[in-house]
């Protein structure tokens, strides 16, 4: 079984049933819930598809520690025990020391903290793991170098190699969970999928202690009106999820609120193991209502109780805690 065969499989229904069964066998009838916590939307990069891109005139905000804690309390109250901390790329205003300070505080509130921030060096990852981080999300966005170079107009993110090796630096530092993905829509997904599978296979062999995860984010354009060059249909998205599930039965898959409620409810059982709920993509979006610019528009705007209810209705148990603070 290889990715190309799966992606060209004529009978999606047949492999869909297998994918669902594999997911239940390995992960059970459970969906783990998490929420994103945006700390900053300051950014030096010009990524043409992103709401935070340096060329856009939006309200730029970086939360201070107390503001971040206020946001965190809202999420904790909603039931979350796992969070994903996000920033743009602005080392001056969002240095590693700032992240370290905030993570130490957040660790008193949550059992699991993952990061989705600019790529760091191995030593820096070690510092943040020590502070309490156990997961990292780092999307290559596209494995096609030409496209990568084109959509990342300027800024430190232009360095393809540095970004590509990020997962390895984090794994070498001892990161427990690392999430990979491509931003679907930038380049032909039929080329991206084998590249992603190769990358993952390489990492699985070399860093066998690390738990790898995948996401399948589709570009969700902000109002700036980025024209998606290679749109991915709902059916194609599902086909991708199913194909990767059959290739990597033990790898967790994440589905965020980028996708609309109806679609999420319909497709999660074919391979998804983690979902976000009630998300805001601007710093201060939960408690402070700062009016800061968003990274992308949320498509599934349901509150946490509605997402929980939908998961239960499908015969799955939503779980908020699947980690323990004494595990590093």
């Amino acid at each position: 079984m290889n990715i190309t065969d799966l992606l060209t499989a004529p009978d999606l229904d047949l492999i869909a049933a297998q994918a669902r069964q594999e997911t239940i066998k390995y992960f059970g009838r459970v969906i783990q819930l998490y929420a994103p916590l945006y700390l900053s939307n300051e950014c030096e990069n010009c990524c043409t598809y992103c709401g935070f891109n340096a060329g856009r005139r939006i309200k730029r905000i970086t939360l201070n520690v107390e503001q971040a804690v206020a946001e965190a309390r809202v999420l904790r109250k909603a039931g979350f025990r796992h969070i994903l901390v996000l920033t743009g790329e602005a080392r001056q205003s969002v240095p590693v020391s700032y992240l370290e300070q905030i993570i130490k505080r957040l660790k008193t509130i949550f059992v699991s903290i993952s990061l989705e921030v600019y790529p760091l060096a191995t030593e820096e990852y070690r510092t943040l793991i020590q502070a309490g981080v156990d997961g990292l999300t780092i999307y290559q966005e596209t494995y096609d170098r030409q496209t990568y170079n084109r959509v990342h107009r300027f800024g430190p993110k232009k360095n393809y190699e540095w970004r590509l090796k990020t997962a390895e630096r984090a794994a070498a530092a001892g990161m427990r969970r690392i999430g990979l993905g491509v931003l679907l829509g930038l380049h032909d997904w039929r080329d991206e999928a084998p590249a992603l599978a190769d990358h993952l296979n390489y990492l699985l062999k070399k860093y066998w202690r690390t738990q790898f995860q995948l996401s399948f984010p589709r570009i969700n354009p902000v109002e700036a009106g980025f024209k998606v060059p290679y749109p991915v249909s709902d059916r194609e998205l599902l086909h991708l999820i199913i194909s990767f599930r059959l290739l990597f039965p033990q790898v967790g898959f994440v589905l965020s609120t980028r996708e609309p409620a109806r679609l999420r409810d319909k497709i999660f059982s074919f391979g998804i193991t983690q979902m976000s709920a009630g998300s805001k993509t601007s710093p201060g979006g939960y408690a402070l209502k700062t009016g800061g610019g968003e990274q992308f528009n949320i498509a599934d705007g349901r509150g946490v109780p509605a997402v929980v209810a939908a998961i239960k209705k499908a015969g799955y148990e939503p779980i908020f805690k699947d980690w323990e603070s004494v595990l590093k």
Partner: protein
Amino acid sequence: MKEDKLKIAGREFTSRLLLGTGKFASPKIMKAALAAAETAIVTVSLRRVDLKNPRDHILNNLDQKKYLLLPNTSGAKNAEEALRLARLSRSFGLPNWIKLEVTPDPRYLLPDPTETLSAAEQLVKEKFIVLPYINADPVLAKRLAEVGCAAVMPLGSPIGSAQGIKTRYHIEIIIEQATVPVIVDAGLGAPSHAAEALEMGADAVLVNTAIAAALNPVKMAEAFKLAVMAGRQAYLSGLITETKIAQASSPLHL
């Protein structure tokens, strides 16, 4: 005839089927499956339960008068993490029994033998009743018994794989040499696999995925219960040995 009970660390249990609590679609289904299995020992993942929350979904649905709660250290990648989880569990008033799992490889969840041995040694010193999850390694099983583990839990095949007992020959050696109960854990996908373990002389089995992920977990739990009883009774009744030649059912008496 003396009643046939499973005995671990001086305590007797009426069932030889241990159940896991992960992967169920709801606490309600979990509860019903435990009841249908008539199990006596139930393992819970310390990373899944919220010890600080008195209304925790899993803990709140387990009647500790009915079941011995066997906390497990799933998620620990080395001895140190397993120790921390075990101590955390005891500090919150859970039983001092611990299912020791040290699995550095998150894909196949295969146990690390050296870390498991060193954690077991320390936990025994700290007066825990230790049941280690191990690969089917007879020497490791002996070493663990020597340091004071209350049972050993060799795997039939990787967790959740439903492949059955792929490690049969080594489990047979473990059973033959055992001075503590042998509980076959992991990989049992069908009641027949469980029956096979008991027929071989294993003292008990632990099942989770095959029940929780079944279409009807409650009925599957009952099926496992019956298989475990059948396997045990067959073992006690003296199974005939395999032979190459035919043995006539009605021998000729000439």
